[in-house]
């Protein structure tokens, strides 16, 4: 369908505003919370908030670039992009800087980024293309799709970044199911995985075991690993209906919360803005998901449907995990809350993903 390409201006005019608005709102709330998180004893609130704003600008530029290029052309290059990503993930494993015990950062002199974040985009792209070329309707094509996705997941797991590897896993399962695989395949796989859990326990590192045990009973180690869970739950719970007010959250100011501007950003936010604010965030995410799936339903391109399933799975998993963790309902993994947590790599790669979805949305507006 060779048509006259839309100019960037026309594209911007045609964007799905209902999808864009909640994202901008979440980003804004994120800036506030990042500032607040660093306003107390741990310090650096202004510095982190300004940096995140700069990352917001970079992300917006990337968004425009991807939108201008169009999702179809990027999908065309999905395989080379994925292969390149695998190469980068591999080299990170070899020469990455050690940050908090895992080698997930690649340093480009003045800025550092986490290839595992961009890897999520590459994974979704390659799966969208691959699953539509070889639909996972037979056991062999189901397994080959898993193998293709597993390559990146494995590399991330080896970094070792178990949290991100879980995201890769969630994305993979959702896209394969969304691509129409018969239920028996994923169910068999899930059953086998359950049986293997006792063996998997031995493979886990000490801190990972501690996190899981503490999740089951935070008071088992209240000064060590359980400490985060208890303090985060206190922060969330003490927020009450309306919260303590902006910059008034004592849990984050007095260093009760570790990593307040990244992993526990939602705890900072809900302590200060309470149940009302927290539900507001959930509503914003709900609106975003609704628009994402809506675009997926509208498009006639199967690849785009799978792509959207992947993007929504990514945001869904990290949102659920990050918010669930802040209440102590899910184990601590250190995953950022999409659009809200401090972190340039996460924000930038999410923007690229949303630009792809917006590009799909634009394609549904074309007259046939």
């Amino acid at each position, binding site marked *: 369908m060779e048509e006259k390409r839309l100019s960037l201006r026309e594209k911007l005019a045609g964007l799905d505003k209902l999808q864009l608005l909640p994202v901008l709102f979440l980003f804004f709330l994120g800036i506030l919370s990042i500032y607040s998180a660093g306003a107390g*004893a741990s310090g650096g609130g202004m510095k982190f908030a300004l940096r995140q704003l700069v990352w917001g600008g970079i992300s917006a530029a990337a968004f425009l670039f991807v939108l201008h290029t169009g999702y179809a052309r990027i999908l065309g290059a999905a395989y080379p992009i994925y292969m390149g990503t695998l190469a980068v993930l591999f080299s990170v494993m070899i020469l990455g800087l050690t940050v908090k*015990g895992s080698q997930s950062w690649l340093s480009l002199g003045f800025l550092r980024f986490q290839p595992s974040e961009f890897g999520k985009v590459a994974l979704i792209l390659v799966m969208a293309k691959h699953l539509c070329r070889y*639909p996972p309707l037979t056991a062999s094509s189901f397994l080959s799709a898993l193998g293709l996705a597993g390559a990146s997941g494995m590399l991330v797991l080896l970094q070792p970044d178990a949290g991100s590897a879980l995201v890769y896993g969630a994305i993979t399962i*959702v896209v394969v*199911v*969304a*691509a*129409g695989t018969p239920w028996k395949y994923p169910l068999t796989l899930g059953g086998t995985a359950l049986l293997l859990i006792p063996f998997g326990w031995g493979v886990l*590192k*000490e*801190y990972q075991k*501690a996190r899981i045990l503490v999740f089951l009973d935070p*008071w088992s180690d*209240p*000064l*060590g690993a359980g400490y985060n869970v*208890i303090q985060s*739950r*206190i*922060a*969330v*719970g*003490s*927020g*009450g*209906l309306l919260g303590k007010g902006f910059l008034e959250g*004592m*849990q984050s100011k*007095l*260093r*009760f919360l570790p990593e307040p501007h990244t992993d526990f950003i939602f705890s900072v936010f*809900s302590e200060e803005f*309470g*149940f009302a604010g*927290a*539900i507001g965030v*959930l509503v914003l*995410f*709900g609106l975003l*998901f*609704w628009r994402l*799936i809506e675009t*997926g*339903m509208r498009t*006639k391109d*199967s690849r785009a*449907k*799978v792509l*959207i*399933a992947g993007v*929504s*799975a990514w945001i*869904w998993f990290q949102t*659920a995990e990050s*918010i*669930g963790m802040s*209440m102590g*309902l899910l184990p601590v993994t250190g995953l950022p809350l999409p659009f809200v947590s401090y972190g340039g790599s996460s924000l930038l790669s999410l923007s690229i993903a949303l630009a792809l979805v917006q590009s799909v949305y634009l394609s549904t507006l074309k007259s046939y």
Partner: protein
Amino acid sequence: MSDLRALLDERLKLWRWIIAATLILLGGGLYYFQILHEDTYVRLASGNRLRLIRFPPIRGEIYDRNGAPVAANVTTFDILGYPLDIEKNDMIEHLAALLSRHGIPVTGEDLEKNVKKQYWAPYRVVRVVTNITLAQMADLVADPEFPRQFFPLPVRRRTYPAGSLASNITGYVGEISESEMKLAAGKGYVGGDQTGKTGIERQYEDILRGTPGEESVEVDSRGRRVKSIHIRPPEEGEDLHLTLDLGAQRLAADLMKGYRGALVVMDVTTGGLIVLYSSPSYDNNPLAWGVTPKEWNALMADPDKPMMDRSIGGQYPPASTFKALVALAALTEKAVTPSTTFYCSGEFRLGRRVFRCWRRSGHGTMNLLTALQNSCDVYFYQAGLKLGITKLMKWAELFGLGSATGVDLPGESSGTTAGPEWKKARIKEAWYLGDTVNYSIGQGFLLTTPIQLARLYAALANGGMLVTPHLSSGGGEPPKKLDVSGKDLDIVRKGLDYVVRRGTGRQAGSFGITVAGKTGTAQNSHGDDHALFAGYAPMDDPKYVAVAIIEGGLHGSSVASPMVGEILSYLLLPESRAKTQ
């Protein structure tokens, strides 16, 4: 194709429901914590009602083989407080004044500095004052002016009753450093914890340490305890029993007084270390209680290096003590027989180079036994040349030279069996036959530690079993059987008997027991020669092996051999034990 698309749309719809359900569940969770249980969490959060206390575990004690303590614990008191409660109303200044009134000289400034250093969060307890005795503490709490915001905590501190006698063995504990904390990640250390820094304390840290206990307490707005939310008592560390004999170690210290060097005594069959003394030594008590950087630097800068354990870390040429091994190798490899003789004129010519015997006038015709007895260099020059460097090195390595013995102490040196490859890499020179000549009498580049020599002589004494030296009574791997003939060993042992009975080591034999062994004088390019003696007793049925190395002691025969004789006699003769004690 459109069938597939319809299937995809169906799946997307399902996916939308799953997402919606997740969001609703999260909302429900928020409702549960923020609305239904708001009170609980507001109470815990307001004024930070949660206090955390940590109970350090009681460290296991260390005993010698007779049950005498070498590392024990004494109770002292620390005064603790929460920054939240004590950083107002000049509370710290007030405490300092009170302490001074009771004869404990501290200033408010010192205490402030202490608090600042440990500050992590306002509700995490800090040690304001440490090392208060029971009497002082009783006196303090009896004073009505003692501020209630501070509270005493009994702590166990390490003391080393044996002090400098066994400091190289026990090592000492100290506050864990950041890098040590990183290494021990996952083991639950926090800043301020004690950890073994050197010696047995470090080697067996995991056994000795125990598990810290902890308690989280809810307090009211004035800091008074309301209830205990969670408590886990500390678990005591395990005691450790050593093979060390403190009485013999004391004798070793007396014998070595004024010398630099090491004295090692080991059980020949088990590898249990009875004596492991390094001279000069240091007192480990002040190190465990904390020394100033100035004191520490003085200790480190001491030219006699008291902190270095010479018994396992000092590297010396084995000198003539190596000849016993050359003799065994030459016999086994058939380079010589017991009746092979070489003539010693006092020197040996190899090409244009002249190698002298230690006795300038020569020993005359020597066979293996008389050569050992008189430590004749010329005999061993030729025996070594017949063996060749490859075989010499093979035998040295077979008996554990050039690699760590695996003793259960940190900081062991491996020495080196420096051969042609080592020489090429190190000084970029080819190996000459002259190097082999020097090697045969244990000079040149060969370096060994005292504990390696003890292990070598133990293997000669026990019939070719290579033991693993160890200090923990349960420690040590099973001995390794070496492939040597008992007949050849008997010949070498006979030679070692001759050394003491009528040769260079006579002074080792004047303590009422039968000793067999070998003297050595190691050339030292930096000063006076080192004196060595390695031997075992009783001669017929060896129980203990002993090695003495005296830096700058000149001749092994005069200084080192009587030390070995006396300490072996102390261990084997009850009456000599009574005499020294």
